[in-house]
């Protein structure tokens, strides 16, 4: 049954080489149609219940060609479309042309209910078409597709039992192809008739919305972007160094300002890209090719916060403004490399099933409430870094005030904004559940229920699962030890427990026992894959999105008191100076004697009347932890801070009633120390076994320039800051104290954290050993081992450690493949970052709810200076926001109330009396906090003190401002102040405090 057929192929690998591949043609490829009696297929994919529309008045299967998939994947993804034949020719073409569409098609194929069948036409003897001599590629493929369609229709005619005929229709974009098909007697439809085709599907009126955009798009003639370079030009440019490649990062404050990280003239640096034209249709996260502008046009920091752009303002004036700004600042700082996007190497448009959350901009709706005429509207994305999306819909009025999902389809060069289409509505804006869903979607957090398939992997005994004899076979029985766990109050997922005892030789035995998640989560099972995809548990203010099903996370794995639990133990022998004498790792069975809160543990330490064994062991732990911490700090570990808060939630409504700062006790530090120690010991162990593929956690040194800025600001307080090593940075942080201002040091630490690069997971094989180091913790090697219930990285590390300690342990090549681990690291880093941002957004959401209807005066600190405003941090609530001042409007002769002085990086103003006021970093200010905005509720922060005429609000006018649309303080600025008051999201940068294990976020309730 094998028919050998070899064919020749040319591929490019630097130079052209000829590749010869075998190509077998077969007789045993079945059509997979349910009605077919000739073929020997056992599980037909294509059902007898085929598509039926008014256009083609018969049941039929459709065969879309490559272009239809590329351009209209959304249409095909709609659930109305089923029973589709995907030809191998098309399938392979798609993989080469667009990986994202290909992946979406894969999802469709895997979804059994959609019935997409891939027909290997190129290996079928009757449908195989040989390429004629010098036949153009596309013609040949068209011929192959047509021959397959033809075969299908004749085959189905022959094969079906009488009266039950199913037609096969080709869908194509190419007129010639259609004409050829019709000439050959094949049913074929062009894309323009797709609309008619869809109109016939009366059951799905929303389908028409999707097809709508493919025709007659309103062109915005005002703007025309430069053509992108083609792929060869880009790759040549990258090779010879005239172009730079990087992933575009758009500023949180200004969606027209982006940057990429790259190396210019041998120095790692940021390349700025400013303005719509230079961004050239690239959006957040795209991998772009950038060409540098001539040095004379380079820009310099700091950045202005363009809040909401002027509708009429066209791009050229914007650009001019920027250049003017540049000239003004010419002499001060070294200009930063600035460039323009000349090509997009990889698009980062969110694609199925992801899309953009947003809301319709009410300004643009023209039709009346009842009209069903479709119109173009703009959707502003929740992510302020994404430009507005132009969609066409009939339901504009209905969707007003709702959160909706939209997807971007294309961005032609003569359209100012990307074009997209409506996907679905989420719910009313401002509703807490809707907003929570929005923030989960926005941060790409998988929050669906666990599927049945995943739950099947749980132990069948369910909650009655017990430790049995067979579990003890390869495990140490440590149930007799005085082990306890210390966690925040009401913590249900306990993944670590500790013990300590004095050994006869005067040394101490200290054990850290971690929940043995890998006993339940076996590699390669659906449960494992689900956990790997989730990556981490996400903690929101009022809920938790688990990585593992609750049966494991909060019960079987969780180390509850007085319950036998499986664990993975790391046991050291420490001498009295807390130096490691010896370390062993073993799987074990433990029974925790007590689950303590930080507070209870602290009480046990302090209460000298308690002299039981458990308390004694906690005291030993505490003493050792202090020594460990001392030594760590001497080595240069940083103590950083983050403005974290905790909400007191109302029991019923779950609305926040109070906000308080998180506090820290000695016992927090105790647990943290031993977790760090365990992570370091484990990292060394797994690296010795898996030198090429160990999963490690790395924290690179901070970017010098940012710290320099901070040091400059500090120098005005007479303080110095050195940062040549983490040790010197840590020392100068300790010394930077101002008497009478206790928050100053904390603020400095918060700002220092912002200068740090995020810590990340890395695969040891992809880096050199000297690059493993963790800057913040001042250790040479580090990993995550201690929280397998809430982090997938720890699960992998558990598997690696298990393989390292026992030679018999079977482990798959997933653990040894450098590339696979590196890929995993990248997904985990992404999930991690997203989880943190989701948590932050959740805090922000609750802050907004808390401040709803309130106006409060608060003390704040200036955390960053911008060209037209500053960022203020309010310690009491841990919130921060931008205070803007109005852009100097129309006439240039009136001096703006506030001027940015780039020399001292401060804002200056002259009062009416002639005295000078300046606002600089670390200054204390008084601000007024309220919530405003309809579509997006945002904190509005206004300056009260120091009073700057035309900028600050006076306390008297406070009442007016709450409800007034326009702030009538000064005639000159009234024009557009409120329009420009769109607040910002919190900093996106991952704060890297203590690498993560030190940061133990747990949720209340």
């Amino acid at each position: 049954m094998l028919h050998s057929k070899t064919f020749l192929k040319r591929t490019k690998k630097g130079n052209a080489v000829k590749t010869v591949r075998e190509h077998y043609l077969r007789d045993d490829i079945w059509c997979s149609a349910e009605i077919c009696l000739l073929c020997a297929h056992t599980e037909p994919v294509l059902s007898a219940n085929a598509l039926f529309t008014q256009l083609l008045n018969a049941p039929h299967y459709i065969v879309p060609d490559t272009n239809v998939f590329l351009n209209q994947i959304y249409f095909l993804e709609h659930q109305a479309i089923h029973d589709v034949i995907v030809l191998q020719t098309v399938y392979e073409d798609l993989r080469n042309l667009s990986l994202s569409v290909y992946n979406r098609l894969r999802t469709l194929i895997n979804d059994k209910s959609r019935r997409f069948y891939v027909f290997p036409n190129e290996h079928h003897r009757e449908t195989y078409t040989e390429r004629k001599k010098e036949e153009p590629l596309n013609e040949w493929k068209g011929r192959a597709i047509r021959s397959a369609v033809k075969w299908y229709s004749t085959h189905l005619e022959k094969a079906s039992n009488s009266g039950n005929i199913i037609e096969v229709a080709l869908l194509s974009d190419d007129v010639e192809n259609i004409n050829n098909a019709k000439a050959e007697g094949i049913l074929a439809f062009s894309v323009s008739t797709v609309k008619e085709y869809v109109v016939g599907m009366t059951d799905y009126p929303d389908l028409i919305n999707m097809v709508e955009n493919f025709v007659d798009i309103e062109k915005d003639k005002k703007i025309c972007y430069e053509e992108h370079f083609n792929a060869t030009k880009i790759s040549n440019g990258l090779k010879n160094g005239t172009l730079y490649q990087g992933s575009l990062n758009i500023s949180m404050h200004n969606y027209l300002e982006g940057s990429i990280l790259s190396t210019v003239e041998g120095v790692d640096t940021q390349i700025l890209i400013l303005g719509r034209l230079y961004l050239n249709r690239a959006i957040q996260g795209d991998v772009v090719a950038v060409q540098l502008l001539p040095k004379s046009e380079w820009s310099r920091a700091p950045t202005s916060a363009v809040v909401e752009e002027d509708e009429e303002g066209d791009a050229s004036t914007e650009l001019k403004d920027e250049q003017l700004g540049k000239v003004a600042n010419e002499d001060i700082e070294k200009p930063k490399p600035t460039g323009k996007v000349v090509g997009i190497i990889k698009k980062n448009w969110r694609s199925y099933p992801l899309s953009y959350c947003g809301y319709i901009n009410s300004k643009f709706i023209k039709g009346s409430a009842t009209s069903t005429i479709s119109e173009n509207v703009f959707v502003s994305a929740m992510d302020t870094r994404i430009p507005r999306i132009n969609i066409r819909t009939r339901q504009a009025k209905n969707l007003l005030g709702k959160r909706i999902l939209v997807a971007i389809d294309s961005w032609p060069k003569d359209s100012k904004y990307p074009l997209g289409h409506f996907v679905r509505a989420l719910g009313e804006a401002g509703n807490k559940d809707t907003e929570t869903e929005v923030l989960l979607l926005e941060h790409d957090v998988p929050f669906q229920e666990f599927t049945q398939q995943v739950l099947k992997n749980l132990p069948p005994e369910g909650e009655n699962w017990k430790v049995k004899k067979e579990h003890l076979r390869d495990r140490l029985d440590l149930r007799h030890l005085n082990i306890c766990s210390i966690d925040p109050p009401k913590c249900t997922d306990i993944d670590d427990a500790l013990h300590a005892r004095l050994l006869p030789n005067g040394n101490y035995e200290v054990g850290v026992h971690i929940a043995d998640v890998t006993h339940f989560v076996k590699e390669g099972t659906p449960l494992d894959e689900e956990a790997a995809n989730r990556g981490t548990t996400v903690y929101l203010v009022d809920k938790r999105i688990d990585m593992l099903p609750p049966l494991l996370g909060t019960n079987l794995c969780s180390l509850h008191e007085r319950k036998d639990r499986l664990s993975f133990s790391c046991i050291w022998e420490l001498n009295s100076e807390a130096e490691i004498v010896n370390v062993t790792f073993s799987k074990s069975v433990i029974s925790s004697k007590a689950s303590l809160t930080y507070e209870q543990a602290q009480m046990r330490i302090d209460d000298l009347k308690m002299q039981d064994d458990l308390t004694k062991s906690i005291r030993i732990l505490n003493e050792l932890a202090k020594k460990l911490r001392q030594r760590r700090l001497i080595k240069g570990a940083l103590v950083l801070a983050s403005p974290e808060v905790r909400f007191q939630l109302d029991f019923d409504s779950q609305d926040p009633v109070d906000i308080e700062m998180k506090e820290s006790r000695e016992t927090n530090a105790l647990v943290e120390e031993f977790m760090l120690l365990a992570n370091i010991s484990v990292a060394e162990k797994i690296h010795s076994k898996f030198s090429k593929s160990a999963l490690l956690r790395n924290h690179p040194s901070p970017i010098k320039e940012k710290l320099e800025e901070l040091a400059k600001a500090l120098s005005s307080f007479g303080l110095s800051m050195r940062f040549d090593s983490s040790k010197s940075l840590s020392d100068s942080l300790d010394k930077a104290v101002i008497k009478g201002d206790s928050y100053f040091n904390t603020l400095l630490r918060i700002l220092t954290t912002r200068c740090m690069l995020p810590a990340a997971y890395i695969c040891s094989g992809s880096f050199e050993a000297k690059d493993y180091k963790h800057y913040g913790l001042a250790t040479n090697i580090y990993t995550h081992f201690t929280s397998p219930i809430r982090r997938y990285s720890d699960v992998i590390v558990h598997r690696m450690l298990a393989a390292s300690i026992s030679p018999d342990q079977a482990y798959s090549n997933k653990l040894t493949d450098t590339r696979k681990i590196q890929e995993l690291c990248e997904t985990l880093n992404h999930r991690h970052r997203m989880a943190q941002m989701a948590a932050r957004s959740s805090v922000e959401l609750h802050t907004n709810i808390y401040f709803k209807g309130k106006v409060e005066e608060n003390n704040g600190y200036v955390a960053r200076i911008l060209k037209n405003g500053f960022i203020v941090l309010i310690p009491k609530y841990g919130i921060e926001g931008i205070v803007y001042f109005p852009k100097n409007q129309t006439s240039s002769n009136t001096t703006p109330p506030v001027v940015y002085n780039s020399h001292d990086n401060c804002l200056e103003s002259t009062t009416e009396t002639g005295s000078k006021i300046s606002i600089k970093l670390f200054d204390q200010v008084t601000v007024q906090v309220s919530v405003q905005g309809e579509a997006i509720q945002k904190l509005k922060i206004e300056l009260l003190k120091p009073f700057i005429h035309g900028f600050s609000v006076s306390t008297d006018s406070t009442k007016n401002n709450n409800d007034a649309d326009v702030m009538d303080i000064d005639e000159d600025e009234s024009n557009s102040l409120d329009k420009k008051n769109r607040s910002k999201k919190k900093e996106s940068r991952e704060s890297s405090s203590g690498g993560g294990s030190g940061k133990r976020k747990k949720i209340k309730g």
Partner: protein
Amino acid sequence: MSRQELIGPQGLRQDGRRANELRKIKCKPSVLSQADGSSYIEQGNTKCLAAVYGPREARQKGQVIHNKASINVELSLAPFSMSERKKRTKYDKRLLEIASAVKQTFEPVIMTSLFARSQIDIYLQILQFDGGIIQICINAATLALIDAGIPMLEYVCACSAGIIENTILLDLNNTEESFDTPELTVALLPKSEKVTLLQLDSRLQVNEFENVMRTAAKGCKEIYEVLEDATRDHIKDLLNRSNPIN
């Protein structure tokens, strides 16, 4: 990212084979008249020519073994065998290793004790390369040895199997081999089911080993039938020619 999809959605491999299918084998014994025994074999796009000389007097004194024949295997890869033309020296480490594997495979099978103090030379030439080099060398050598009339215990047939995306694939070709695929090459005496060579490239999980081994062994037996048929056809042909009356 641009990694090829080696197994398609309907379970077909890139070249159109299913997971448990061999490539097409063509073989012909006795293709060279100078040699004592010879063979030509194609497994898909891998093509190999084998020539056997001996048993004959040992060329070098040092190689003489007093109670049995010594086996000498030399392997060379034609410069035109791969997509890029490249000349390889005789002392290429990789080739020497494969040659020695072939030698060790045949030492227990050829009845060397019948030919004390003599030498059997096996020359192998790869004309075209598309993966599975050890297996084709062994299969070609078997045919050539039979053609030379050298007494052996049994046929030796070799075949490889590997795992890609959790599917066990039989008889990997060059593309399939080149992703650090776990590949097990087995040389089997098909009747007695004795194994004379077992070689593993890359890592294979131990609980998969048995299944891969079984698949490869099945492949060996299929190859055996092809080789056996070719030999019998050849013998029939010889008989026909020596009996012009028929």
